[in-house]
Structures are given as structure tokens and as C-alpha cells.
């Protein structure tokens, strides 16, 4: 067959087609993704999904958090009703944790909801929001909720913006309960984070005669609360090298307790699995007592 330049596309034409295809594909992709706005945090459906799956990296923009919260079919919108108390969970940025980076959302939202059921029954005068309520540290609304709860802080890696907001929150009068992290490695991570957050305030062991152990229930002993797996199957109560449970705290210069750290223990799992017939009731019992005391203390001191 004779070479006919009219029927065979030239190399130049092929190149142009390729460029055109690439360009149109790129434009289509951009349109499909909704071209990026010039300013402000970007909200993308993929963010929400990543958050839902706990695979979000980096600081979570408040708008994304709101979108994410909508996925959690709560019968009552936390911002429609006005309550005195919201069990607010801190959505923080973190390192990779067991393959994903959403360590803040461990046990969320079941532990939170289940804790609220118990809390409302035990503190029947408390005007509390019944469901879970998570907020990123950079959300200005965080300041409307002076009680904060966090888990798995061994993987926490706060961004400068989160750190600044959280520091302000705590010094202004916020109260932060940290729970469910184990062993010396995770402690070292938290200690480093706290040393950046509140460098001038030391972490101290809370003695058992501290009012936080007696403001509602008299807690006479610090129990190690195991995670659900080990609790249900009667395994050891510790994880990693965290053999001894500790309750530590950070006080401001006026002696006000700002941060309570529950190390080598997992109160959240004990709330979350309190209804499980295999999970030892003494741990749930203790976890609720501690949780109620934290709330009473936070709302009175």
C-alpha cells in the first residue's frame, strides 16, 4: 500500500489531538470537581467521606466538619436546640494511626451518645444535649462549649492554628478531658503536644483526695479500664507498656484544673460497650462515675 499523506494522520496532527484530549480532560476534571475557590477552606465531598472513614489528614476545616456532622443523622440539630451542656469531642489533626489519621473519632459517635444517656440519667438536673457533638479546634464555636473530650491523643499532631485556638480555649476557662491512650510512646507524643500547647504549666498527678474524685461519686481507686476487645474476652487490661492507669492534670496559675489526662485507661470503650453483656460491668460502672465526676467538676470549678 502506497503511502498517502492525505489518509495517514501526520505526527503533528496526532500530537495536537493528544494535547487537545489532555486539555479537555483536564477541564472536564476541574469542572467535575467544582473549580477551586480563590480563598477559604475547600469543602469537598471526598473530605467528608474521608472524615467519615476517619482518613482525613491535616486540620479539618470547620465547614467540612459541619458537612460531616450532617451525615450523622442526629434526630435533634445541636444548633437548633439550646442546651446548657454539650459533650463536645475535639476533632484534631493527627499522625497516621493504624493506617489512617482520624484517631480523634475512635468510638465516635456511639461512646458519646451512650455516655450522654447515662449522664442524663445520673445528673437529672443537667440540661444536656442528648447526642454526640464534635468540633475541630479551629472552629470559633468551640468557645461556646467549655467541656471538651479527646481520645487516642498518642496520634495527635496539632497544627499551629489548632494549637493557638486550643490554648486560648483552655486559658479562657475551657476544660479538656483526655482519654484512651496507652504506653510510654503515646504519652511522649501527648507530652510533646502539651509542652507546645501550654509550655508554662506542668503536668501533675491528681491525688485521690482531689475534689474531681469526690464531687459527685466518691472514687476511691483508679481502675484500669480495658478496651472492648480485651474487656470482653478477659484479656489483660493494659495495652502496649501502659500497665498502670494514671489520672493527671494541668492547672493554671490560679489553681484551676484545665486538663484531665486519663492515661493507660479507656473510659470511652466502657461507655460505648456498657450494654454489652460480655463487657465487665465494674469497668462501665467506674467509667460512668469518672465521667459524671468530670462533668460535675467542669461545670462547677
Amino acid at each position, binding site marked *: 500500500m502506497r503511502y498517502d499523506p492525505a489518509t495517514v494522520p501526520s505526527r503533528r496532527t496526532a500530537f495536537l489531538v493528544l494535547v487537545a484530549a489532555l486539555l479537555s480532560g483536564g477541564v472536564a476534571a476541574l469542572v467535575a470537581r467544582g473549580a477551586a475557590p480563590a480563598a477559604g477552606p475547600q469543602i469537598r465531598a471526598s473530605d467528608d467521606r474521608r472524615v467519615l472513614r476517619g482518613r482525613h489528614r491535616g486540620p479539618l476545616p470547620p465547614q467540612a466538619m459541619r458537612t460531616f456532622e450532617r451525615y450523622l443523622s442526629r434526630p435533634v440539630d445541636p444548633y437548633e436546640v*439550646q442546651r*446548657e*451542656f454539650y459533650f463536645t469531642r475535639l476533632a484534631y489533626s493527627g499522625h497516621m494511626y493504624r493506617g489512617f489519621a482520624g484517631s480523634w473519632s475512635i468510638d465516635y459517635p456511639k461512646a458519646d451518645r451512650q455516655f450522654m444517656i447515662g449522664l442524663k440519667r*445520673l*445528673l*437529672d*438536673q*443537667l*440540661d444536656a444535649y442528648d447526642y454526640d457533638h464534635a468540633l475541630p479546634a479551629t472552629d*470559633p464555636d*468551640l*468557645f*461556646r462549649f*467549655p467541656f471538651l473530650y479527646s481520645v487516642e491523643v498518642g496520634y495527635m499532631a496539632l497544627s499551629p492554628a489548632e494549637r493557638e485556638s486550643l490554648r*486560648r*480555649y483552655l*486559658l*479562657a*476557662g*475551657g476544660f479538656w478531658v483526655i482519654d484512651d491512650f496507652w504506653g510510654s510512646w503515646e504519652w511522649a507524643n501527648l507530652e510533646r503536644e502539651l509542652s507546645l500547647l501550654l509550655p508554662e504549666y506542668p503536668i501533675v498527678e491528681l491525688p485521690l483526695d482531689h475534689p474531681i474524685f469526690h*464531687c*459527685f461519686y466518691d472514687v476511691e481507686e483508679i481502675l484500669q479500664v480495658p478496651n472492648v476487645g480485651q474487656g470482653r474476652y478477659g484479656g489483660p487490661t493494659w495495652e502496649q507498656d501502659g500497665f498502670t492507669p494514671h489520672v493527671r492534670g494541668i492547672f493554671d496559675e*490560679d489553681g*484551676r484544673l484545665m486538663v484531665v489526662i486519663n492515661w493507660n485507661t479507656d473510659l470511652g470503650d466502657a461507655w460505648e460497650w456498657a450494654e454489652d453483656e460480655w463487657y465487665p460491668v465494674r469497668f462501665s460502672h467506674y467509667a460512668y462515675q469518672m465521667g459524671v465526676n468530670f*462533668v*460535675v467538676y*467542669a*461545670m*462547677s*470549678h
Partner: protein
Amino acid sequence: MVGLFEFLFKYRPALFEEGRFTFVSPGWMQVAALLAGGLLVVAAFTYRRMGSGASDRTAAAERLRWLPPVFRSLAIAVIVFCLLQPALVLSTVVPQETFVGVVVDDSRSMAMPDEASAADGTRAGAVLEALSGESGSMLDRLAERFQVRLLAFGRSAERIESTEQLRFARADSRIGEALVAAKDELAGLPLSGLVVLSDGADSAPAELGDALLTLKAAGTPVYTVGVGRPRLRKDIEVSRVVAPRRVLEGSTVEVEVTLSQAGFGGRTVDLEVEDDGRIVNVEQVTFPRGGTAVTARVMFAANDEGAREFRFQVAGQPGEELLLNNERTALVEVLKRREKIFFFEGEPRDESKFLRRAVSQDENLHVVSMTRQAANKFYGMNFDEDTRRFEGFPTRREELFEYSGVILGSMEASFFAHDQMRMLVDFAAQRGGGVLLLGGRRAFSEGGFSGTPLAELSPVVLYDRPAEQGRPELLTDLRLELTPQGRAHPATLLRDDREEANELWPTLPPLSAYQRATELKAGATSLLQAESPMVSDPMIVLAHHRIGRGRAIAFTPHDSWHWQMSAEIPLEDQTHERLWRQMLRWLVSYVPDRIEIEADRDRFEPGSTVTLRATVRDEAFQEVNRAQVVAAIEQPSGEEVEVPLDWSVERDGEFVGTFTAGESGLYRVEVDARSEGELLGVATSRFAVDELNEELFGAARRDSVLKRIASETGGRQVELGQADRLVEDLSVSSEGTLVREARDLWDMPILFLMLIALLGGEWAVRRRLGMA
């Protein structure tokens, strides 16, 4: 008016008041008068006959025909009256047989240069000229008829031989006491009266009434001669300072200063407050154009413990006549003690947590709290060995009344027993405590307060809200604004500068409230309000009113803690702390203690008698009359004097004693009250003794004082140049050695005027009728 009367009736009304009217004509004259009367009747009859004969007169003329005989008859009556020799019988003093005391004000205020009649322009100069000047001096005129005794007075009155002994330098002038002393000095002499020459300045602490009663009872009329102008031309005076006697350290002291002025209307002056030589505040005061006095509220912080003398002064203005009255001092005891406040909260709330935190660093406030966490489960905080511990709300008065203030949080009325609610009302009304009602979903109307004793406490009008209505709706986005009263109230002073504080309020983050409080009770004052799209009227945010001896305050929002936590508020901002510190200090200010001791004033002149008044109550604040109360007075020299105080009988629980303060300086009184040997309590107080220059305040001539003295003792007020009148008035006095004297009245000008008018009138009518 008196002058016209005197012209028509020959004598002043005073003489008519003193004298008795009579006719002095012989008996035949009176018979003649009867005959004249008979003639008059005949004349009238004749007139009538004459008149009826004419028929061509008009109807108008017919009506006038009665007038000529009436005029003629009246004219004859006047002549007859004169012929009967009417006279005024007066008791007058026998010349040189009675005495008159001339009492001259010898105080410093007499040196005021506001008497134009004197050569040197001063009051003193005018007095000296009037008393013993060249022409017709008062003393000479008096001496023509009386034995004159000259006295000078300051605090009291003493005899002097001549006016040369007058110095016009005494610091005090106590006019009432001086007059009584003068009367006593001249006791036993036939005294016609006392003549007092004064500007009316009276620095006596006691009421004038007692002295006047003594003079009245003794029948001594006092004739007052006013010196000086009734109004200064150009002067500014700090007339009154109303300051609390005791405040907590670090509190904002609110003082009411009244400034009077003459000739400075419309001018703005600086009112300075000085604490130990340090200026702590300067308030600009503008005098109204029309009025004379203006009251300024001055606020400043009392930061140093102890008895502080705050000086309030206005710099002298150009042309001001008297500068010494431009300042006053007030003694305020700044206490370092912890006022106990009981905070009863119905549910765990951030509002109560942050409120307690805001005042936790305040060394003068001790907030004990009891919060309901669950049904019948309470969490008490801050109880210490000094405070009784109880679960829930106190059931005994002694438990509640040991606090100075009570804060009631979000707690429904149905929680309380009726007696507990009554006790809380009594806490304010009888114990004199402060009750702060906080907003919340279970407070006020929303907490069912309406129709219960708790409704009495609320300064806002409550409405019935049945519990079936469920959870009250939250009114959000309330931006607070000050009411006119709030703009000047110490509780709203969130910044040191008043203007800055007033501008701050609307910029604070908005709050929310469950209370639909839009109507104030009668007598209540609103300090803060907020507009809400959810209610038509402005919402009352902060209001207060008095309940018996105490007060109740309402603060309706439930989330003022946002001002501490808000992302908009800087960390170092102290707005929230200051709001609550001030609010709670206000709550417990002026709350009485169980045992109290007070001198009748905070400052005295040296040598004054100080009356100490103690109030003694038991733990339930019931007054105790059977107590042994002793006041230990520490004098400035350090010497201590014990003064036992006795039950006053006039009031329950009141014990009174007196003490003469000789030394100048600061005195400290500690009172110790015991009942059957058991100590009920102790209390302390302070007062200062110093030269006060009291008479330089209200330095213009006080006519009111002079008039009162004259009218209550039966004397009269006369002017400085009216020596004749004074002599005449004294002569007809009913006191002293008297003789009767009849004064003719037939030649009173009014009689001649009447005669001319009647005869002229008759002539005019007759002409009209064609009879002339």
C-alpha cells in the same frame, strides 16, 4: 405692704397685734353719738319722701337714688367714730427699767465681704457701724429706753463691755445654744427681749427647735437683725457629700456631691476627689443655667485599707467671693474583710461556674455555693469552718442570715417550702441582705415564681406560666444597652472611665435569656435592657429595687459567661470578672451587721459631744434589748476610754452613749455586746475630730433661720438700719417692767380718706341725679 399699712393706719400691724382697741371719749359723747344715729334715721326717711315725688327720672337714675343717703350716713358714721376717740392701748416698757440683750455673732463668717452698706464692705463692719456708728446707732437708740447688755457669741454667748471686744474670728456659731446662754446670762433681770445680729449661719449639730422651745417657754422674744446678703453674688460651694461610711477594699465608691453656686450658671468646673493627697478622680460638673445646685455622682476605687479621708474640691473660680467652702471631706472606712454570699443553683450551669470563677480571686468576697446536680443531690462548695454546712437550702434563719448576700440561680419556686421562700424575703426585708436573682430556664416567671413569696423579690413584674407550657423559649441575640440610670450606676462601670464603660456595653457579645421580663415593678430601677426581635418591648436585663432594709437585683441573661469564653474577647480582658465583682460587691454593700456602732456623724468639731449608737441583734437578726454594751474609744493620743451604752428605749436593740471628743484626730470605737455574759459580737467604727468651718457653708445670710427664731419666740426680724422700729417693737413687748399707754387712732389717714371719698361720692351721685 407693711409700709402702706403704716401709712393708712398710722401704726405698724405689729402694734395692732400687741395692743387692745378702745374708745376713750367721755360718756356724754357716747350719748351724743346715739342721738346722731337717731338723726340719721330721720334724715334717711326725709330723703325717701323727697325722692318719691319726682316722676320724670329714668330707671337707671331711679336705682342710684339710694346712694346719696348711704354715703351721707357713712360719712356721719366716720365722724362719729372719730369723735368717740378710738385708741390703741399698749403695754410699753418703763424707760430704763427693763433690759435688752444685744447678742452679736462673733464668728468668722461675719468677715464675709457682702454688706455694701459698711465702709469696709464686710458684715462685721456693717454690724459695728449699725451698733455704735456716728449717727443714730442702734445701741444708743436702745439705750434711750432700755438697759442694754452686750453679748458676743460663737459656740456660746458671753458678756462683753463694748463692741471693741468683738473679733469676728470664732470658728463656730451655734445660734440656738448662744441664745439660751444669753437668756441664762440675763436671768433674773426684767428682760424685754434679745436682739441678735447675725448672718444666720448655724453650725450646731443639734436641731434649733430645742433651743427655741426653751426661749419660748421663758417668754423671751428674740428680735433678729440679719446681716449680709441673702444670696452671694459669685460663689461655688460643696454643700453636701453623701458617702458610704464603710466599703469593701477595692470597691467602687459612689459618692453624691451637691454643689451650689451663685453667679456661675452654665459654667463647667472640675470636681476633684483626693485620697491622701492623690487625685483619684476628676468629674466635670456643669451648673444649670436656671437652678443653683447640682448633684454629681462621683465614683472612684477605694483600694487602700483603713480609714480614708476623701476630699472633694472645686478649684476657686475667678471672682469667687468665698473660697473656703469649695471643699469638703468624707471619712470612709475601707474594710478588708470577706463578705459571705450564698449561691443557690438549681442545675449545673456554666453561668454559675464562671460567675464563681470571676470572683474567686476577690479577697473580699466569699461565695459559698450549693448546686443541685440531681434530684435531692447537692454539691456544696467553699464551705469552711466559719460557715455552717447544710444540704439544699437552709431551713433555719440563723443559717441563712449569716450571709450578707444570696444569689438564686435557675431554681424553680416549687422546690422551696413556703417557709423557706418567706425566709428568703425576710433575708432582704428584715436582715437587710442583698438577693440577686439570676436568669435561667427555671427562674422568675419561667420558674413559677409568680404567686409565691419569691415574686416579692423580683424587681420585674412576673406573669403566670403554667408548667404544662414546657421548656421556655430562649430569646437570643440580645445586645445590651444601658438605661439612663444605668449610665451613672457603679455596677455598670466596666471600665475606669465612665464614658468608655458606657460605650463598651453595646459592643459586648450578645447574650440570651429565657426571661420575658419587660415590665418593671413600681419603685424598681432598670439599669440595662436589650432589644429582641422576639419580644415587642425592650427586655429588662438588670434591675433592682429595695425590699424593706435590703435590696433585690435581677440579672436576666443566662450566659454572661460568653464574655469570658468568647473568641471575640481577648484573654486578658477583665470585663466578665469586673461585672461580677462589682455586682456582688453592690449586692452586699450597706448590708447591716448583727452588731453595729456608729457615731451620729463622721466628723466633729473639737469639744463636740459625740453620740454613739449601737444596734445589737442576735443570730436570727432579732433585736436584743437585754444586753451589756460597752464602747471602747481609742483616742488619737492612743489613750482608751470606755463608754457604757444604754438601751435607748425608743427603738429595739438600740444602745446609746455620749462622749466628749477633745483631741483632734481620728478616733476608733470598738463596741462589745454581751447577753448574760455570752459575747454577741463586736463592731468597730471611726470618726474624725477636726476644725470643720461648717458655718462657711451656706454662707449667704440665712433668712430662714433668722425668721424661724423670731417667729417661734414671738420676736420679729428687722433689717440692720431699722433701729427705730426695733426700739418700738421692744417697747411694746409684753416682757419687762410695763406701763399702759393709749395711742390715738382718730387721726389715722384712712379715716380722712374715707370721709373725703364718701362726701365726694355723694356729691357726684347728686349731680348725676340733678339734685345738686
